[in-house]
């Protein structure tokens, strides 16, 4: 009988954020039928409290950094970085949701419970060092996201979004699972550290398994994870889902699950598959280029703002994949920095969209933003910061994100990818600038005239990420140093 059971206090501390979120999520779920209170802000307040507590938990867990539960979790700087990131994304999702849900008459505790559970899954993914934990975390996060995408049950677009996301997402998860099965067959382990040892030929089972099977496993996992981060050629779902999902949910989908999946992506490919790196590099190279190109050129043609942001998020996934192609510690650090900057600016831009969309989300077109600068200078100014950061203008987080990524790519001698990536960002500037022109150089339209004044939650949802974006743009070293320190995934 194996005697290696049990855990100690340190294990529990390292699992603190997930515990807090699970307890609070369950509480939210159970309290609703007891209280019978609909349309109250209490659930939102409770969720924010849970997320803030979980951030505290994540930071406290970092003081006890190390593996937990027999190496299933790896609570290191990398995990903490992404845990805090998805928790912040959660807060920034709930802040604009107050007004948005009240306007659609749809404030329920289920919305918040699902959001909290989804974030719990993402925290788990950020810290996972075992393919089983990765899988369960991915499923918790995804299933909650599928339901959230279809949260407006009487809206056909929302239904369509949920169904497409669910069907394609489950299909992608199956690919990931096939990859896991192959890894288990080839290495006899689902633990990333143990599997890496076998793959690099240092395992107890003798020589390394044939690289072709590990390569197939890597390709299968790439399909599954590539879908979740909406990297081309697995990006087809993203525009429809982002357009149909309620706007705060779309904001969440474009930031939270994406950051967490990239955390898994980086950890799996930079630890377990690192020994066969030269094998998967062309695959990621191709996917990075395709994502950037498809995302940016398709975004040029959009008239719906949510679709445009969806294509833009595909392009940004491409930039992060450039960092992965670099296959270096610098590249991983650049990807971490970029994901933080991207999450902040994207979720901020979506918050502005959700503010302006009106009852029933009528106003989603780019034209609807015309004249925003005259009527609501604060919203327009904040949205401008996000758009400039998405372009990559200096003094914003987006600039340094792109800078570090392409620097890492050049250090790894990926000259062509860098050149093509830079050309791509030049193309991208066009559609972001078009928004700016629309806001400041056109007369106010119907949407802007009908816009409500900013509520407190929305004000916070716009100003906080804008401050974060500027902070990352002016003092990038604070975050970058931490990222650089924790990007050494192989220990």
């Amino acid at each position, binding site marked *: 009988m194996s005697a290696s059971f*049990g*855990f100690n206090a340190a294990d529990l501390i390292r699992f603190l954020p997930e515990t807090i979120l699970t307890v609070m999520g369950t509480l939210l779920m159970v309290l609703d039928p007891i209280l019978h209170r609909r349309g109250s802000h209490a659930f939102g307040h409770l969720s924010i409290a849970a997320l803030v507590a979980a951030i505290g938990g994540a930071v406290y867990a970092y003081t006890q950094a190390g593996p937990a539960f027999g190496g299933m979790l790896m609570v290191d700087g990398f995990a903490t970085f992404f845990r805090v990131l998805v928790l912040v994304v959660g807060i920034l999702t709930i802040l604009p949701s107050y007004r948005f849900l009240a306007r659609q008459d749809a404030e329920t505790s*289920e919305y918040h*419970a699902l959001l909290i559970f989804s974030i719990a899954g993402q925290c788990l993914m950020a810290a996972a060092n075992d393919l089983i934990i990765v899988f369960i975390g991915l499923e918790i996060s995804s299933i909650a996201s599928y339901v959230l995408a279809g949260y407006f049950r009487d809206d056909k677009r929302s239904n369509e979004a949920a169904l497409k996301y669910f069907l394609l997402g489950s299909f992608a998860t199956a690919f990931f699972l096939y990859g896991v099965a192959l890894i288990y067959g080839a290495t006899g382990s689902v633990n990333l550290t143990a599997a890496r040892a076998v793959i690099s030929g240092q395992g107890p089972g003798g020589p390394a398994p044939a690289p072709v*099977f590990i390569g197939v496993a890597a390709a299968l996992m790439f399909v599954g994870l590539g879908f979740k981060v909406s990297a081309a050629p697995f990006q087809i779902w993203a525009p429809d889902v982002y357009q149909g999902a309620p706007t705060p949910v779309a904001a969440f989908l474009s930031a939270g699950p994406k950051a967490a999946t990239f955390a898994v992506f980086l950890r799996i490919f930079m630890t377990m598959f690192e020994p066969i790196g030269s094998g998967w590099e062309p695959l990621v190279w191709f996917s990075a280029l395709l994502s950037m190109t498809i995302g940016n050129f398709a975004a040029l043609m959009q008239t719906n703002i949510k679709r445009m942001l969806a294509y833009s998020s595909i392009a940004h996934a491409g930039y992060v994949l450039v960092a992965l192609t670099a296959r270096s510690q610098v590249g991983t650090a650049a990807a971490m920095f970029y994901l933080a900057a991207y999450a902040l600016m994207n979720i901020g831009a979506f918050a502005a969209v959700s503010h302006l969309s009106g009852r029933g989300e009528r106003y989603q077109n780019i034209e609807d933003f015309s004249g925003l600068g005259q009527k609501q200078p604060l919203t327009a100014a904040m949205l401008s910061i996000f758009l400039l950061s998405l372009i990559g203008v200096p003094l914003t987080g987006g600039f340094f994100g792109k800078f570090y990524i392409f620097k890492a790519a050049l250090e790894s001698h990926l000259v062509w990818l860098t050149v093509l990536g830079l050309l791509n960002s030049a193309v991208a500037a066009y559609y972001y600038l078009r928004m700016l022109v629309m806001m400041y150089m056109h007369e106010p339209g119907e949407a802007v005239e009908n816009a409500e004044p900013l509520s407190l939650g929305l004000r916070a949802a716009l100003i906080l990420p804008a401050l974060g974006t500027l902070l990352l743009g002016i003092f990038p070293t604070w975050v970058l140093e931490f990222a650089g320190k924790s990007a050494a995934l192989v220990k």
Partner: protein
Amino acid sequence: MLTDINTILFYVFAALVLGGGILTVTRRNAVHSAISLIVSLLGVAGLYLLQQAEFLFAVQIVLYVGGIMLLFLFVIMLVNLDLAAHQRQFNKQWLVALAAVAAVGAGVGYFLYRGKDAFHFAEGGAGLPPGLGNTEAIADSLFSEYLLPFEIASVLLLVAVVGSVVMAKKRI
């Protein structure tokens, strides 16, 4: 003699799995597809038993044949079957399907050709301490080594409950 029985049984169960699977994707009537899927799942259960994985055998029957298929049938009955049968069906992509099968077949063939040494194959029931059944072995690792996945699986179930209520209940 015994290995012969095992081999014969393996082919019988494999035939059930494959035959059920083919029927599942080719039947026009969704209920027939679901019943064929049950046959396929029972075949998989038989394969588990051949591998001396008795617990998985029981799980396969209780959970998949009993639970999941029940859910499948209910979901099929939510759909207006008569209407659905007359709508355009999307399972007529024979060429694409054949190409996919050929590609996977080539992969499996390549695997059989040169890769079988790359995998850690174990005899059925190998690694079990003497006098210990499959259920004990699973229980032992599930409740000690894999306690974290076990506990968080309940969170996954909770999400599914909330999700199904949000999606399916008339008023929430």
